[in-house]
């Protein structure tokens, strides 16, 4: 017994990803402007020039759970961030609430430093686990944000209600705060607390906006296409039901 519908949907995703990647190599795809990511690039440049620290939070989700998606998107941002900040006097700090996620962050950071030939500047303690539960993780954040040398606070990962406190700590310290998560309720909290909140699927767009590779940009086009198909299916289903046609 094979779940054909599931495989067809998966096929649409993979075909679209590959097709858009090929298209992206030939032509430039323009995306709408996202102020948060544009400002992030500038904030990182300023931090590197001023010898200040950049902090990336990968959230409190685990690697093996269903909440790993946003943190994987955060790791894509980390790749770009690591190369951009490799020459800074103060290395970036990456925090997570899960030990395995912390190991992945250390690995990504090390790779980023190696890619620009600065592997000697990598410090193992740049990737940290702050606490295994959501609120113990948040309780550890002021120790990093309150030192005065962190000026960019990026949160891309899985957060619950604790996201509001995590963003608020950054705002209180007057640093640049960009925050996104997969949880709808936490997104509404971040809308109130963060200067640059990421709403909906914007949390997955970091790699594309920071030029992490053609497949990242193809991902955004794929998301748009699949969303269009879903909206069309919903509208069609509504019309059919309205006219008494049952599927």
């Amino acid at each position, binding site marked *: 017994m094979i779940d054909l519908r599931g495989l067809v949907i998966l096929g649409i995703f993979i075909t679209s990803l590959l097709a858009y990647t090929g298209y992206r190599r030939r032509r430039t795809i323009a995306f709408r402007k996202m102020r948060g990511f544009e400002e992030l690039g500038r904030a990182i440049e300023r931090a590197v020039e001023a010898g200040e620290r950049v902090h990336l939070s990968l959230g409190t989700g685990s690697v093996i759970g269903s909440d790993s998606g946003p943190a994987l998107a955060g790791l*894509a941002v980390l790749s770009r961030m690591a190369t951009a900040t490799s020459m800074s006097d103060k290395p970036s700090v990456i925090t997570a609430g899960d030990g395995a*996620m912390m190991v992945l962050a250390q690995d990504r950071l090390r790779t980023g430093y190696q890619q620009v030939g600065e592997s000697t500047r990598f410090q193992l303690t740049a990737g940290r686990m702050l*606490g295994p539960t959501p609120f113990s993780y948040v309780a550890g954040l002021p120790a990093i944000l309150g030192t005065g040398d962190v000026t960019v606070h990026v949160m891309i990962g899985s957060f619950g209600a604790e996201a509001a406190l995590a963003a608020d700590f950054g*705002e209180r310290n007057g640093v640049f705060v960009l925050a996104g998560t997969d949880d709808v309720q936490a997104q509404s909290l971040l809308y109130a607390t963060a200067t640059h909140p990421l709403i909906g699927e914007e949390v997955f767009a970091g790699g594309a906006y920071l030029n992490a590779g053609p*497949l990242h940009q193809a*991902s955004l086009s794929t998301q748009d296409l699949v969303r269009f198909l879903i909206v069309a299916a919903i509208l069609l289903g509504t019309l059919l039901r309205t006219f008494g046609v049952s599927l």
Partner: protein
Amino acid sequence: MKLGTYLIWAAVAVAAGIIVLLGYFTNLDVFIGLRLVLLRWATLLAAAGLGIGLVNLASVHLAKVSDQEPGWPYSGVLIVFLTFTLALGLFFGPDSPWTLFVFNFIHLPLESSLMALLAIALVVAGVRLVGRRRDVLSLAFLLTAILILLGTGPWPVASDSGLHTAITDLRAWVAQVWAAGGARGILLGVAIGAVVTGLRVLMAADRPYGS
């Protein structure tokens, strides 16, 4: 040498991902069995990751204490209680009354107090939002929040008035039609984004395990 190592990591990650995916999409015993074995291994590795994370946590704070960095007394308290709690769990077991006492009467109240702090932080953030982002969306956000608060609980006075009933009905309409519809749209977007992110890892385009 490095290229070979990277290919092995990528091959292992892609193969494991495809087997787990096939376990979901097919009913074949071989894939279902392999999926369960791989998921058990992943759970074990995640537990090992927690151990590594705790060592990392202790080493960062030990360094802070030894270098007498600002806030080092807090790091000292953390190390003392980390050792204490770990010793309790190792010697008496995670279900012992001593361990449960620490969790129920120290850990849980501390986390609850942070939850209470969250309510205050949100009120302050709401006030700050008015000054920081003066646009239609922020205004709509604040008005909706006030409407939901007014329509959720009883009022000190005039709880049985027509105005209260009207606001309660309006709250239900906003929450069940507008908010629920919007939340479903956001959830669809998040789900699609998560699938695409997972596929990038499966296609070895994203390599969170290093290159």
